[in-house]
């Protein structure tokens, strides 16, 4: 039996331990905010946090989260940084089609947790693995800077 928490609540799973975490989140836990993109960890759409670290859930076996804490886009607003990022996303009207955005936000939150006032280079380094087919990159960059400013102001 694999036991772990998702967004703070306890979960247990005793199916195929090699099933991707993304399958569990979407099909078993009904948390469909996390999206399937490429299936080979090359696009970033399925990014979630495991113990606070951004991870591509499409290639992460569910067994590897045994005893760990998983956080998805559904709980982003419950954290101060996540809340600021989502506000900045709304204010900047970042998404176009929106499909990649939950992954973008999860990566942006991880970046700001690691470095509260990132440079453009930092944003490139941390966010380049998240692809946006609508090319909303300039708005993503602006929103991250805007969230960082608010974060500095609140601190």
């Amino acid at each position, binding site marked *: 039996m694999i036991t772990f928490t998702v967004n703070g609540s306890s979960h247990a799973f005793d199916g195929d331990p*090699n099933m991707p975490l993304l399958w569990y989140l979407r099909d078993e836990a009904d948390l469909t905010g996390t999206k399937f993109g490429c299936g080979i*960890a*090359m696009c970033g759409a399925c990014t979630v946090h495991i113990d606070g*670290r*951004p*991870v591509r859930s499409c290639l992460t076996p569910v067994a590897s989260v045994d005893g760990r804490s998983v956080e998805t886009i559904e709980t982003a607003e419950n954290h101060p940084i996540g809340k600021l990022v989502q506000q900045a996303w709304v204010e900047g009207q970042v998404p176009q089609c929106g499909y990649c955005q939950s992954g973008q936000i999860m990566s942006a939150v991880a970046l700001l947790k690691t470095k509260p006032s*990132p440079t453009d280079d930092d944003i*490139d*380094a941390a966010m*380049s693995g998240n692809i946006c087919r609508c090319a909303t990159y300039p708005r993503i960059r602006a929103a991250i800077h805007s969230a960082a400013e608010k974060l500095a102001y609140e601190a």
Partner: protein
Amino acid sequence: MKFRKLAGGAVAIVVIVAVAFVAYRLLKPEGPEPTPPIAGAAQDLPDDMSRGEYLTKAADCAACHTEKGGTPFAGGRPFQLPFGTIYATNLTPDEETGIGKWSDEAFVAAVREGVGSEGHLYPAMPYTSYTGMSRDDILAIKAYLESLPPVNQPTPENSLSFPFNQRWGMAFWNLAFFDETRFTPDSDQSDAWNRGAYLAGPLGHCGECHTPRNIGFAMQSHDYLAGTEVQGWKAYNTTSDSLYGIGSWSDDQLRGYLSRGHAPGRSSASGPMAEVVEYSLQHLTDGDIDALIAYLRSVEPEQGDRNVTVNVTPAAVEASNAVLPGDDAPVEDPHGRRLFEGDCAGCHQWNGIGRQTEYASLGGSSSVNDPTGTALIQVLLRGTSIEIDGVTQRMPGFGGVYSDTDIAAVANYVLAHFGDKEGTVTADEVAERRAGPAH
């Protein structure tokens, strides 16, 4: 007159030396048949596996005798040599195209003496190592192969150029380079060590890839396991040398590498070695893996040629975390770093610890510490995969989307960041590798 006498004398000496050499090689003892517990299957053999199947796996017959995507043991896999292509034969019990009609004697001769149904075998078939095996073990392998369903699949004709297409010529090669000796246990060593020696030599034939070859394409015995290049990949130094070999690897690292293709804090097996772990080593029992380690630890340290020193704590990696890179030394051309941040960091991460799987960790890996980038280029171009316990770990190849310049740039960036090495990979070299054999 004097000259003719002198010349005659010289010829006579050459003839005498040659005859003496031939007589020495022919009369040299082959040694007794290796006996248990050294020969044979592991003592902790699982119930669901026959002795023959275990030995077939330990000798890794499947890796060569299976075509990519083909039926196991049905042969057809091409081996590109400098003088042409040869094909692995069909080992299924098909009477027409396989070993269905082979006698025990014929099979043992092929495996131990390198003499097959069409005459001498080429030493791409590692009879030079298999020759140490016991007759019982070879017949157990034959029995296992005979238990498989027959597959009627003719082996393609070899396409070797003259004189290499003359099989009888191999008799002379054997005379010069083939030491037909059975494995003899060393009574001064433990059973585990002897078992390890039998697994690494006669069965696993590690030396066939990891030992540099001489001008006659034979293993250089004084450089045993000192590392070399094979089919465009690197077979690293696996002697006990602490700088160039595996001397500073922990038992856990060696165990991880051999039994599942990943050594924590060191390398993941890729390319041909991934196949060795997938087809052969992962099936060995815990006892046999420990025996292999005991033996490898005792292999004479050798520095080898063009070998790799591994920096397990490069400054750039130490300064990085999972999300962001530390300050890399400034580079003139940021192209490699840009490619890495877009396509590689998603799995490997800036601190190289591997995001979704430990197999993606880069820190301490030999391939990112080899300034020539030999294996690195191959992995970047063609990707690599390994199936352990039914789960496939895969790195996609970027040969289809990256130019030669791209591959060279990202390879040199990776060497600088993860190995603290000045990479020497050029676009021309990548182009050459791209055109060369996959492995």
